[in-house]
């Protein structure tokens, strides 16, 4: 095995760890509304979301193509640059998870890769047209769109069902949330798992294992789907609480509207290859469904904290990605740098988890 192949294996493993943390960090958002309205028990909701995240990863490859081809110049990228970008994203994901903030894994990933590419090669390595046109502008529009769709959807629901007895309406929307929650999980798997596929494809292109513009191989799709599904199943209670109960106190109609709006925005964006933040979209939809009923029902202070985390994500992940690349270069161009970073990262993660366990497990919402 050559040293280049060893670096590639490290990158693939790191990408799958990122995918796992993405599921761990993000997918809780998907089930939060179902849990907070008691449409599903936490365990069932999480299992259901994990299965549908896995299935969703097989639906489309448009987002993977955007990440692999439209963010950085593939022929000047090395697997070490991709590795450093992934470390930037994972570090930011874990930090925001630790503090219970639903920031964007997608922006962390793209920010990390852009930061490390910039540090390694310079501005010519970054496809600013792609970053602006396919990532940053859609990132700004998507949550606003989800807010509008969620707001209109809940107004429509209340208009149609205004004078009905609450019992059957609540039961009906609880059943509806089984479908809308499933659809949201499917949409999440479709958009988010593809980002990891795109990054692994980028590393394979950089190492000469895949021609530019080619679709990710099947093993990449299956492994990315599995990693995000496992991450979904295992983690995320702390963020469930933020998403499901702190932004607004929802009824089942609002939960259904938020999930439907979020699914519609994510699926439509996926179709056009936009690697948007599912966290941003779901937060926007939840706030829209809250504001559609009563503007003061939304706890805008919490929403403000989330927006702050969003704003910090891209530059913070880029800075960590750039710094990580710099550290790897202290050990030369070989595999030693990435191995040292992996060892240090693993040690820090174990320490953080040990501290979290000592503090006690966060209580699930609902």
């Amino acid at each position, binding site marked *: 095995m050559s040293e280049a192949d060893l670096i590639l294996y490290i990158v693939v493993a790191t990408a799958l760890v990122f995918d796992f943390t993405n599921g761990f960090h993000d997918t809780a958002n998907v089930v939060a509304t179902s849990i907070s309205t008691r449409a599903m028990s936490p365990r069932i909701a999480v299992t259901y979301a994990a299965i549908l995240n896995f299935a969703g990863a097989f639906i489309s490859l448009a987002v993977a193509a955007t990440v692999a081809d439209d963010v950085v110049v593939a022929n000047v990228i090395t697997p070490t640059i991709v590795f450093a970008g992934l470390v930037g994203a994972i570090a930011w994901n874990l930090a925001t998870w630790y503090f219970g903030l639903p920031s964007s894994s997608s922006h962390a990933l793209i920010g990390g890769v852009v930061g490390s590419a910039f540090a390694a090669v310079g501005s010519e390595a970054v496809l600013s047209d792609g970053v*602006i046109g396919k990532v940053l502008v859609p990132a700004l529009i998507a949550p606003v769109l989800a807010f509008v769709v969620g707001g*209109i959807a809940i107004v*429509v629901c209340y208009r149609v*069902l205004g004078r009905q007895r609450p019992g059957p309406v609540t039961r009906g929307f609880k059943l509806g949330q089984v479908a809308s929650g499933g659809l949201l999980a499917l949409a999440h798997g479709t958009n988010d798992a593809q980002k990891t596929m795109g990054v692994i494809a980028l590393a394979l292109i950089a190492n000469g294992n895949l021609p530019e513009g080619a679709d990710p191989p099947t093993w990449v799709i299956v492994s990315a789907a599995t990693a995000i599904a496992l991450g979904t199943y295992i983690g995320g209670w702390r963020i469930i609480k933020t998403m499901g109960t702190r932004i607004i106190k929802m009824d089942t109609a609002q939960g259904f509207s938020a999930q439907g709006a979020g699914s519609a925005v994510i699926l*439509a*964006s*996926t179709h056009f290859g936009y690697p948007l933040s599912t966290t941003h979209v779901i937060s926007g939809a939840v706030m829209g469904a809250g504001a559609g009923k009563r503007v003061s029902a939304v706890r805008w202070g919490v929403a403000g904290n989330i927006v702050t985390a969003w704003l910090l994500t891209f530059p913070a992940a880029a800075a960590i990605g750039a710094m990580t690349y710099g550290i790897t270069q202290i050990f030369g161009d070989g595999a030693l740098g990435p191995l040292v970073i992996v060892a240090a990262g693993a040690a820090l993660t174990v320490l953080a988890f040990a501290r979290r366990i000592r503090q006690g497990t966060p209580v699930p919402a609902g």
Partner: protein
Amino acid sequence: MIPPAEIVDWEALLDTGIAALIAGVGVAFTFSLAILGASRFIEASRDQRTIEAGAFALLGVVGLIATAAAIAGGIIVIA
């Protein structure tokens, strides 16, 4: 350097917005109709208003089918 306004494919973004709006609001509307139909069907059946019950049952079924069709159609378009 290309101005940022020209970098963005506004047409694709507009299509995304319209598709999301129609799908998100449309599904909320059709599913609300399904619940309305089911709820009023129960009331009308209890009061033995057979024709009204039948009409609301039909509304409920149509709403449910439209919701399922919209979801399935959306997934097929993406795939």
